[in-house]
């Protein structure tokens, strides 16, 4: 029962958990930045890339979205060394996988964002003599990102939770470190409750932030 638990294991393991947390954060930030950039390119390819490019981007997005993330993580962990001929380690593999996987999800959000900008603005920028890239960079994308900010952030919360799945390839993120300590110190109850609490506090605070942001953006429009 609860009285038998020994939570003194927690302070002792903080340095290790912190290192794991930093890696979870590193995946999240890398995949967010890389995913939004790649995703925007995918969205542009789907919307204005010509039939072949659009079909390729659509196929890529649909494939990524129909396979479980665990499979994708494991798949890249197997494929990359086969392709380049030498192992790259589970940490690098995780960073690459999350970036290209999240690109599919951010891509769909950015596509909705680009479509949320009225066609009049697109025509106006072309009428002013802007090139495609100028119109995108100066007129359309800034508004698309702004309109989609709550969704992009919500996706990032999902991404942060999903980083726990690198457990499967043994990369040392927050959760993997916690399971290691739980096993070696025989303190599963204390460790798992504690990491659950950490994830909850972070994700819940971020979701409150998104809610506030939604209200502010609603006024601007």
């Amino acid at each position, binding site marked *: 029962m609860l009285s038998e638990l020994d939570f003194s294991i927690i302070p002792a393991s903080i340095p290790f958990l912190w290192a794991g947390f930093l890696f979870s954060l590193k995946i999240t930030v890398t995949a967010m930045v890389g995913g939004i950039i790649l995703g925007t390119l995918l969205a542009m390819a789907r919307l204005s890339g010509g039939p072949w490019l659009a079909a390729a981007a659509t196929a890529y997005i649909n494939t990524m979205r129909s396979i479980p993330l665990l499979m994708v993580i494991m798949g890249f962990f197997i494929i990359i060394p086969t392709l380049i001929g030498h192992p790259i380690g589970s940490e690098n593999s995780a960073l690459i996988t999350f970036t290209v996987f999240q690109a599919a999800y951010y891509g769909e959000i950015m596509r909705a964002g680009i479509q949320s900008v009225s066609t009049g603005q697109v025509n106006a920028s072309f009428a002013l003599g802007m090139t495609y890239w100028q119109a995108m960079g100066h007129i359309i994308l800034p508004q698309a990102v702004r309109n989609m900010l709550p969704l992009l952030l919500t996706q990032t919360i999902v991404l942060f939770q999903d980083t726990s799945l690198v457990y499967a390839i043994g990369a040392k993120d927050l959760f993997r470190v916690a399971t290691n300590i739980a096993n070696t110190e025989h303190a599963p109850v204390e460790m*798992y409750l504690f990491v659950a609490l950490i994830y909850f506090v972070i994700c*819940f605070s971020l979701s409150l932030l998104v809610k506030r942001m939604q209200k502010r953006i609603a006024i601007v429009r």
Partner: protein
Amino acid sequence: MSYHWDWSFLFQNIMGGDETYLDTLVSAVGWTVAVSLTAWIIALVIGSIVGIMRTLPNRYIAALGNAYVEIFRNIPILVQLFVWMFVVPELMPHDLKMWMKQDMPAKEFITGALGLGWFTAARIAEQLRAGIQSLSGGQRNAGLAMGFTLAQTYRYVLLPMAYRIVLPPLTSEFMNVIKNSAVTYAVGVIELFYQFNQINEETSRSLEILVIVGGLYAILAYAANRLMTTIEKRTRVPGFIASK
């Protein structure tokens, strides 16, 4: 690329037994479907109850529903499964704890399905709440004014419309359950992802098995999509946008 594709391992007998890897894959698909469907039913029941709670006039019941959703949405599914597996039994009274740890039949399956079900329930509750609240307030008031009790108003007025409204998001949620079921390998359910790792280790035909299992997941997700779309078409109400 000079990779030499070889699919013959599928028909090899495993460790001298009668079973082939193809048989293993068939049974793995069965477990993936079983754990997903069980979790889906649990999620629909709990998600409906919690979703309705969140729209009730009683503030405390609504707050309880909100708390459920926030807790189960903001903790990763993998962590939740470990909590179900390793923490929940420890918090039980002594006899029950011993039974759960030692004698409980199909422990892995029950833990996996329960964990996935409660996790998904939070998402369904969120969809259903939004669905109920998207109905105009007049409908609820009209039901009550007609002399329906609150329960009858939900049963005959609000829910029949709300469920139809949330069917499209439920479709993608159903596909998510199938994809998320891969995570139950971590608590020992012998489903597709578990067997994928197993076969990959035993045969080293990595790319072949990757293509097969990835394809199987895609087919399952597509089947789920077709099933839900059929239900959507069967239940639509004429005169609404969704029924075009």
